[in-house]
């Protein structure tokens, strides 16, 4: 619409203008209003992608995961449109594979040294177990930070790459400190720890030469989330305090030492509230687990809203208007699919069970079957198990992960889009070492 009128055919104006540096063509203004994010991807092609991927994972004993992850990301990125332009994922499976091989080359000698040290009975042996734990704890966030850098640098928007600076080791230390404080405060410090980590990450995130920021407030998140926290952990902490107040440890220890048949009875007579405290603990624990499961979608919606609304890139700002109900709908759909799948698996299991004589499961009878039949039986059982596990994982990827991606984008809005036109290219692609390390350590799924 804003195209300047082109030169009339045969006009010599083209030559003279071309001699001088060409003036920039007027850019098309970005779409304004609510529809700044769009997602085109449908579920059917994604189902096909994931199911085919699951089959190939089994056939290749997992080696195919690099290709599957790349295909997944290409699908997600390419179908996401921001202000009229679609994202591009420029990563390749080969990069992921090489990153993994490099990570293995780093980890295997480390594992070897730690295992050998652990075999010794002296001080070095005992420390090495602790050392292994500390190293793994450090490597985890390190890998995640580097993997994030890889994914950012392989994301291209309007011909300009995103990139990430910052030290992965520093982030790793911050992350461990954050988790230590969170655990020590039973989760109360989580909002501030998360805010600090997101600030570090976004401060070092760039779109071209435009830097990112995170302005989400830990206090805000705390105030929004304290209700959830009280609902889930409140009864558990209360019952723990009650137990600590009413149970005398030395009395219990004495009764255990004396032993005998009426251990509980003797404890009861000494401390009448013992069984009550114990029951309260058990009930509170189950309550926590169930409440955590039921409230998880609410928690996710809250985190998504808070995180999205805190993102800034130069003059651009994001907000999220995702509703908790949408998140619940998403997870309920997942539960529904899982139940259907479980039902199908159970029906197949029953059919197989009637065909195969169940006496084969008796150990003595089993030993009489010849070795080859044994092998076939075990392999069939193994394949069945893997199919079920991969089935659930595939259902999760499509019904939850894909929908979550779409939901996050479609409920988000960008303001200050004019800034989108004035970004200059910057940044170099990062290596896939972090991705490989995360894969080798089994953290942060592809």
């Amino acid at each position, binding site marked *: 619409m804003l*195209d*300047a009128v*082109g*030169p009339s055919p045969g006009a010599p104006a*083209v030559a003279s*203008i*071309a001699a001088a540096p*060409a*003036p920039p*063509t*007027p*850019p*098309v203004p970005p779409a304004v209003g609510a529809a700044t994010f769009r997602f*085109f*991807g449908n579920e059917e092609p994604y189902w096909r992608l994931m199911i085919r991927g699951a089959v190939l*994972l089994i*056939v*290749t*004993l*997992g*080696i*195919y*995961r690099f*290709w599957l992850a790349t295909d997944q990301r*290409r699908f997600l*990125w390419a*179908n996401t449109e921001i202000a009229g332009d*679609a994202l*591009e994922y*420029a990563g390749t*499976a080969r990069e992921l594979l090489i990153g993994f091989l490099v990570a293995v080359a780093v980890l295997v000698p480390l594992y070897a040294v730690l*295992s050998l040290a652990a*075999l*010794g*009975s002296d001080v070095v042996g005992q420390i090495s177990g602790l050392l292994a734990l500390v190293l793994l704890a450090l490597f985890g966030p390190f890998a995640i930070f580097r993997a994030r850098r890889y994914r950012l640098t392989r994301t*291209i*928007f*309007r*011909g*300009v*790459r995103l990139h990430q600076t910052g030290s992965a080791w520093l982030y790793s230390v911050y992350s461990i400190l954050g988790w230590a404080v969170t655990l020590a405060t039973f989760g109360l410090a989580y909002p501030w720890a998360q805010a600090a980590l997101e600030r570090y990450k976004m401060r070092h995130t760039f779109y*071209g030469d435009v830097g990112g920021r995170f302005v989400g407030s830990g206090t805000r998140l705390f105030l929004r989330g304290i209700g959830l926290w009280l609902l889930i952990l409140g009864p558990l902490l209360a019952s723990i305090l009650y137990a600590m107040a009413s149970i005398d440890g030395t009395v219990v220890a004495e009764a255990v030492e004396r032993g005998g048949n009426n251990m509980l009875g003797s404890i009861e007579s000494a401390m009448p509230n013992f069984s009550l405290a114990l029951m309260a603990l058990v009930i509170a624990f189950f309550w926590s687990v169930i409440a955590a499961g039921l409230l998880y979608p609410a928690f996710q919606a809250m985190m998504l809203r808070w995180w999205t609304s805190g993102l800034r890139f130069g003059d651009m700002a994001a907000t999220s208007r995702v509703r908790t109900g949408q998140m619940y709908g998403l997870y309920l759909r997942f539960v529904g699919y899982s139940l259907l799948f479980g039902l199908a698996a159970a029906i197949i299991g029953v059919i197989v069970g009637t065909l195969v004589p169940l006496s084969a499961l008796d*150990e*003595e009878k089993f*030993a009489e079957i010849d*070795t080859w039949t*044994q*092998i076939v039986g075990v392999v069939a059982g*193994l394949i069945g*198990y*893997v*199919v079920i*596990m*991969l089935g659930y*994982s595939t259902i999760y990827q499509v019904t939850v992960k894909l929908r979550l991606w779409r939901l996050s984008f479609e409920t988000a809005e960008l303001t200050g889009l004019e800034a989108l*036109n*004035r970004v*200059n*290219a910057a940044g170099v692609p990062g290596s896939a070492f972090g991705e490989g390390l995360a*894969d080798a350590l089994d953290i942060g799924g592809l």
Partner: protein
Amino acid sequence: MTRSGPGIFYDGKTSARHTVQVELDGAGVLVRAARGDLLARWPYGDLEHLSAHDGMLRLGRVDNPVLERLEIHDPELAAAIDDLAATVDRTGASERRGRTRVVAWTVAAVASFVLVGIFGVPAIADRLTPYVPTAVERKFGEAADAQVRAMLDTDRKGEAFECGRGEAGKEGRAALTRLAGRLEAAAFLSVPITLTVLRKPEANAFALPGGHVYVFEGLIDRAQTGDEVAGVIAHEIGHVANRDSTRSVIQAAGLSFLFGTVLGDFVGGGAVVIASKALLQNSYSREVERRADAYAVELMTRLGGDTRALGAILLRIDGTNHPGMKLLLDHPDTKDRVAAINMAPPTKTADLLNPLEWAALKRICAGP
């Protein structure tokens, strides 16, 4: 032949969006700005088909340091480029071919990993075991000795867990030491043997690195002659001489690396990894037991004992232990083992323990 249509161009230096006119001539794609100046000229052979959603054709240039992108929404223009450029294939056929190649290569890789697991790992462990110094083995043996005793001593007998320390078992202890000494002398080992009888009712015996051999009370109870006990001890000495514990540690590490780090990293893969490791480790240990049996036969021949005694006690014990799955049994089929043992000609000259010693040995676990 020229075709042209609208497109969107990004110059890779700024994020500005340029509406352009795309022209296709015989050699390549021409990108003209609205005012007519040429922004890019890409030969067909250099075109790179980039990832995009179905409604758009996204093109770049191969090995371009600048991230120039050309996006074409016009389906006819996209189809024309598809026809003219060999590198652009919107049907997905070349992608499918590529994926088939990838899958074929990875399946081949998996097959070779499995072969390495079956043949390569034991061979490598065989090569590496001699390089482990005996001092290191002895250190591991000390640590393992303490842990194993603690694990097996479920009634917390402590010192009394070992038979033959008290007065009642002293004679049996002496008889056993003499027998072990004769076996050791004929074996020419690099480590001394430390023989211990443990107060457990199972009929079993095992060896730890560094020369620690353990025999359970149950085995002595079920033995009918001194040569049978000697045969079992000779078998365990075989494990020590062959450094089987160290080898199995190296094999386990190699297996862990193959099936664990490299393979099996998918949901549910853990079960595959455990099953493969169990199957392969079992096949390794069958070979190990066969070799220890052969060593025992050789040792008993040197001492003039009954080479078939080991087979006799194995058969007797086999009936009592739970049958279980052949595949996962750590020891190969007992009948196969006994058949192999009995292939050696019987060269018995005399009982290895005289009747007095044998009676004393039977009483080794009497008393505290």
